[in-house]
């Protein structure tokens, strides 16, 4: 089984770190993994992409990801300027950081889940150089929305990557995102 | 008016730059090229040549200055050798990628370490993949004529690529022989004023060569390959036209000598092409059907011409004044690759000779030919690559 994930974000939001942490979490669960950025001239603020692959067999692929199973969108504005569902597999899941409910987002022929990761970061005062950190909490949301990785492994990877208060805060954000994630396909409200 | 002078190939390169009405020259010294730029300094300082003469502080800057000057709409010229050419390597790629018709004289000299100021082709052949057209000359007259032909070719809108005119250090660069300098108006009628494919113009602002993403980069590379193919077609035409106007022509891509019925064809580059004629004539008298083909243009490589030379030859011998360490000489490699899949492909024996200025005399060439003929008779090339006269 091969799962391919595309992460949309802005330069400086940590899309590549998100891909790397996601892969690391899957690796702990015994999977073969791969994580890589889209190689372009990243600029702070500019739309960027990063990718992860998770599989039971060794991964020999080195091409771009063209038809992802899952898409993570770190920035609430990006889906208005970039087609985040491009190439998404049938019933693929898009997880967005936004205050909006899934059905308010209006993405077609895909399953949508949403969580206000920015809000969580502001709530926990989880900031770097003034901007909210969302690339760790969104992994909690990813675990909830897809079940591909367990929350405990997300927290384990976060605490291995950041020690002390930073580790705790990022782990707390991931837990909150896990709890607050809304699955559009289950949410009848 | 027309004049015949007795001078070195280096000085003739200077005469050619003057005749071509070059407007910007970037000059930096390196043995054995130095007297080219010294000659041009003379012309500029005594008013014979109306050009801007930039005394740059390195070869890397020499090529950078030429690139920007050519991009600002003028004909440019520079000259270098060996490590100077190697230092330019990055800029050579930039020049061809910018499709700027810069002409540079390369006075061939071995690459170190250790230091060697004597000729071989290891410097220019190391640059064969940079998108530069490469001419190799066998006489002072050919140097003068080829610089002019190169400008005509490079400024053709189907080409717009830079070119190297290579000549061996000392054997040509510092050797005095007679050479004819045609009248300026006849040269002007052959070589019209500079025309570039694009330029930096405040009235039509552009940014040149900013980032190209994967979606179009390959297509730009392909257009350079197309330009090289066009050059392969245009070089013989320009050579013939030059011959009609001035009485000198060099066989276009390949200068063939008595190859029509040859059993063995010797492939050479540079001045050994002329010494080879002596060996061929001598062996012909002995009833041996030998011919020689001097590869005048290494890029674009004259693959089709090589195939035409197969005829009823059973053996090709390549003489490389170069070695690509861990393999063979480039001439051998490219001749062999041209033959792949052809009907009645002759055997090929590769010879390495004349590295670091060692002589490749007609006797040496005769020895090479006789060994090749022996292998032709036995039907077996016993040594894929032979280092000629290698000390024990």
């Amino acid at each position, binding site marked *: 089984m091969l799962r391919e994930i595309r992460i949309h974000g802005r330069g400086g939001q940590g899309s590549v770190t998100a891909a790397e942490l996601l892969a690391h979490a899957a690796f702990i669960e015994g999977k073969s993994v791969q994580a890589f950025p889209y190689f372009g001239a990243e600029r702070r603020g500019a739309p960027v992409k990063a990718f992860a692959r998770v599989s039971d067999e060794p991964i020999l692929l080195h091409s771009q990801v063209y038809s992802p199973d899952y898409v993570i969108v770190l920035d609430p504005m990006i889906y208005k300027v970039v087609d985040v569902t491009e190439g998404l597999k049938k019933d693929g899941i898009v997880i967005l950081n936004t205050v909006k409910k899934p059905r308010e987002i209006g993405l077609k022929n895909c399953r949508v889940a949403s969580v206000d990761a920015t809000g969580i970061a502001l709530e926990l005062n989880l900031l770097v*150089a003034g901007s909210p950190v969302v690339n760790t909490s969104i992994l909690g949301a990813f675990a909830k929305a897809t079940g591909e990785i367990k929350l405990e492994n997300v927290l384990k990877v976060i605490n291995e990557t950041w020690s002390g208060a930073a580790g705790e805060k990022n782990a707390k954000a991931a837990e909150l995102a896990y709890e607050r994630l809304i699955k559009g396909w289950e949410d009848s409200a | 008016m027309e004049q015949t002078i007795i001078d070195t190939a280096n000085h003739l390169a200077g005469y050619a730059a003057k005749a071509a009405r070059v407007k*910007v020259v970037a000059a930096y010294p390196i043995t054995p090229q130095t007297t080219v730029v010294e000659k041009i300094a003379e012309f500029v300082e005594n008013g014979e040549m109306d050009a*801007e003469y930039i005394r740059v502080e*390195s070869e890397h800057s*020499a090529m950078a200055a030429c690139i920007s000057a050519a991009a600002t709409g*003028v004909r440019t010229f520079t000259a270098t050798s060996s490590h100077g050419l190697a230092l330019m390597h990055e800029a050579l790629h930039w020049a061809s990628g910018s499709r700027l018709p810069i002409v540079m004289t390369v006075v061939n000299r071995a690459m170190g370490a250790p230091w060697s100021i004597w000729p071989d082709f290891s410097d220019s052949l190391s640059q064969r993949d940079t998108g530069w057209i490469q001419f190799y000359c066998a006489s002072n007259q050919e140097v003068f004529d080829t610089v002019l032909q190169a400008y005509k070719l490079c400024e053709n809108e189907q080409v717009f690529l830079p070119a190297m005119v290579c000549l061996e250090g000392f054997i040509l660069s510092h050797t005095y022989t007679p050479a004819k300098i045609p009248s300026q108006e006849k040269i002007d009628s052959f070589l019209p004023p500079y025309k570039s494919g694009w330029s930096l113009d405040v009235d039509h602002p552009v940014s040149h060569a900013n*980032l190209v993403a994967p979606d179009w980069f390959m297509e730009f590379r392909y257009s350079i390959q197309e330009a090289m193919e066009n050059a392969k077609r245009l070089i013989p035409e320009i050579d013939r036209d030059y011959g009609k106007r001035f009485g000198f022509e060099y066989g276009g891509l390949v200068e063939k000598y008595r190859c029509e019925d040859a059993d063995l064809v010797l492939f050479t580059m540079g001045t050994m092409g002329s010494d080879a004629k002596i060996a061929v004539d001598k062996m012909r008298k002995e009833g041996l059907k030998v011919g020689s083909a001097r590869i005048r243009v290494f890029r674009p490589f004259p693959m089709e011409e090589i195939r035409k030379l197969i005829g009823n030859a059973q053996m090709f011998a390549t003489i490389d004044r170069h070695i690509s360490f861990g393999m063979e000489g480039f001439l051998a490699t490219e001749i062999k690759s041209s033959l792949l899949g052809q009907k009645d492909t002759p055997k090929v024996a590769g010879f390495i000779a004349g590295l670091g200025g060692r002589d490749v005399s007609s006797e040496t060439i005769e020895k090479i030919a006789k060994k090749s003929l022996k292998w032709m008779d036995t039907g077996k090339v016993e040594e894929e690559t032979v280092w000629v006269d290698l000390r024990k």
Partner: protein
Amino acid sequence: MTTLKELPKEEYLLKGHAACAGCGPSIGLRLLFKALGNKVIMAVPACCTTVIQGPYPFTSAGVPLQNVLFETTGAAASGIVAALHARKLEGITVVGWAGDGGTVDIGIQALSGAAERGTDFIYICYDNEAYGNTGMQRSGSTPYGAWTTTTPLGKGERKKDMPSIMAAHRIPYVATACTSYPIDFVNKLRKAKSIKGTKYIHLLAPCPTGWRYDTSKTVELGRLAVQTGLWALFEIENGKFTLNSPSDRLVDKTKRKPVGEYLKLQERFRGLTEEKLQMIQSWVDEDWVRYSKQCV
């Protein structure tokens, strides 16, 4: 003396370019065109501007701009100047616009060659104090103690004094400037344009991405760099040194803010020990003793 409202409204750095939000160098580039107009040909080596102009087939540069090799800005400018002279084209200002790495490190040889030859052009080093385009690696122009990705514990050497190096070439005009003082920078560009020969302007251009501060503070930080005396605004015209406002009033130590006020706003100096901070303060004070002697 120019005022803000006298500056032309035309923009030759077109909006929608690829600079990071809060980019100091982009302020500098806009001001360049306000001072010099658009009869300008630019040589730009590998640097942030290479990407800021945007990818083919678009560019946000409104003047002819040749992207050149990293080491070659000085040589490229020589080529352009020579060609324009050969074509007898007048009234075009040739500008080299390069980052600090492309100036004080890899490009210093070509620049020195061009200056020594007296090439008639204006060279502007926009200094964000590291290799910004490749993600903030240490350059010769990175200040002592600053974090970069290649000096995680802070740079161990002091910032290379490029203006002095250029002045040593006896070129007619050397100046320092800062994107927080637009009128000073524009006046210097206009003066440079009126002088024949090689003119060098070293422009401090704060960079939020690299210095790690909030994007809104770019101008405030540039001001503090000057007010603390860490960055002095001066001109060296045919060897004559003069301090420009407000630096001319900072020879008096009491008028200078402590360097800490500037350094502590930037996360790249977070690891700075008190001892290193004092060392930086002492170096600044020494510099100003030197400036005051040169003023006379």
